[in-house]
């Protein structure tokens, strides 16, 4: 190629453009990693405090779980859930969907895992509070309540542990409800939460993106209905196996 003055100008200009573009990119990156926006923390804290102050509530949810096949292909599984909580020591969580139908009951003394289609259940003694039980179930048995983080009274501290960045994305509408959309980053995990605007700052949707797994699979929960004045009866937090249902072991992790 002939190196005419015009060519040199073009080359210089394109270098300029590249530098300008890089500079813009760098500014954008800096803006993104600006740390934790106080407003994002504030909205989240208001939500977790509000939920912690609710003594009894129930929520219906729609869950999607992505899994990654050996080929790299992502497959999504859907389920619905019903959660009933009575602080300080009662929980009932049902989920049914593509893969599994399961009931999880905690009555303050023991926790039970029941899988109706296989007619089996497991039951173990459990600690005396909801928070202790969730920790116990996770650390001793690897039993994890889908997005159980929110049930803790100190949910804010659990969620914010290790968080390096947090922003308010903007307003969004989830299930017809106007929400604030927040996005946070921590090592190995990006997560987003949509919090209802107004006097009842309830979480309406959560998305967890696991960054250290191939193709970064996501788990998402949408709350289709919140009930802050639920009616519970004696059976809500009790488990009585039906005839033909067998007890099996829950393997310690």
């Amino acid at each position: 190629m002939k190196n005419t003055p015009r060519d040199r100008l073009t080359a210089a200009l394109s270098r300029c453009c590249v530098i300008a573009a890089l500079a813009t990119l760098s500014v954008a990156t800096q803006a993104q990693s600006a740390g934790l926006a106080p407003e994002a923390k504030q909205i989240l804290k208001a939500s977790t405090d509000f939920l912690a102050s609710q003594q009894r509530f129930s929520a219906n949810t729609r869950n999607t779980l992505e899994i990654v096949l050996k080929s790299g292909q992502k497959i999504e599984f859907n389920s619905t859930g019903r959660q009933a909580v009575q602080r300080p020591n009662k929980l009932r969580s049902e989920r049914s969907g593509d893969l599994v139908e399961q009931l999880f009951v905690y009555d303050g003394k023991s926790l039970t895992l029941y899988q109706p289609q296989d007619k089996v259940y497991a039951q173990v003694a459990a600690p005396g509070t909801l928070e202790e039980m969730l920790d116990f179930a996770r650390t001793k048995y690897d039993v994890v309540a889908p997005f159980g983080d929110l049930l803790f009274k100190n949910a804010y501290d659990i969620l914010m542990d290790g968080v390096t960045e947090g922003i308010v994305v903007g307003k969004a509408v989830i299930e017809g409800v106007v929400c604030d959309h927040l996005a946070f980053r921590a090592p190995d995990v990006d997560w987003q939460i949509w919090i209802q605007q107004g006097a009842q700052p309830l979480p309406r949707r959560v998305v967890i993106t696991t960054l250290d797994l191939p193709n970064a699979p996501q788990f998402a929960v949408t709350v289709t209905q919140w009930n802050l004045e639920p009616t519970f009866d004696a059976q809500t937090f009790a488990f009585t196996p039906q005839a033909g249902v067998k007890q099996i072991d829950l393997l310690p992790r």
Partner: protein
Amino acid sequence: MSRIRNLKTLVATTALPLLYLVGVAPDAPAGLTLLQEAHAVVGAPLTPVSVAGVARRTTRRVVVAETSATQAAAASTATTQQQAATAQQQAATAQQQAATAQQQAATAQQQAATAARPAGAPAAGAVVTALPAGCKPVTQNGVEYQNCGGVYYRAAFQGNNLVYVVQ
């Protein structure tokens, strides 16, 4: 129990791609293969369902895949652990024998079953997410086992997942 964990760690570190495999009959249709494959992956809940679950996990629960390749790899490396565990089991068996005649009979039956274990059978203590075809339920001392061609499995929950432990 530590044997199972070690086995899982081993498989997790050396044979990650194999985790996505599960025992499938050679003539199984593609759809079934995908379903079982997917189920196997979900059986190992690799996609955390809580923020703390991502941040805090120190060990990742993994379901040992039921393939001969995995078993061969796992079995050969885990032999020492298995021997130790077998010694423990033998000690436990001795205690049981002292306890009741009924338990003696049961132990003898189990030993017979172990002795008659078919070639290529999964190692005792292995955990699978699905039973092979043609299993028959057998109840011993009030515990239900699945007899699958001479290999006995016992149902259990491992985390939120229903699994079968090879006896």
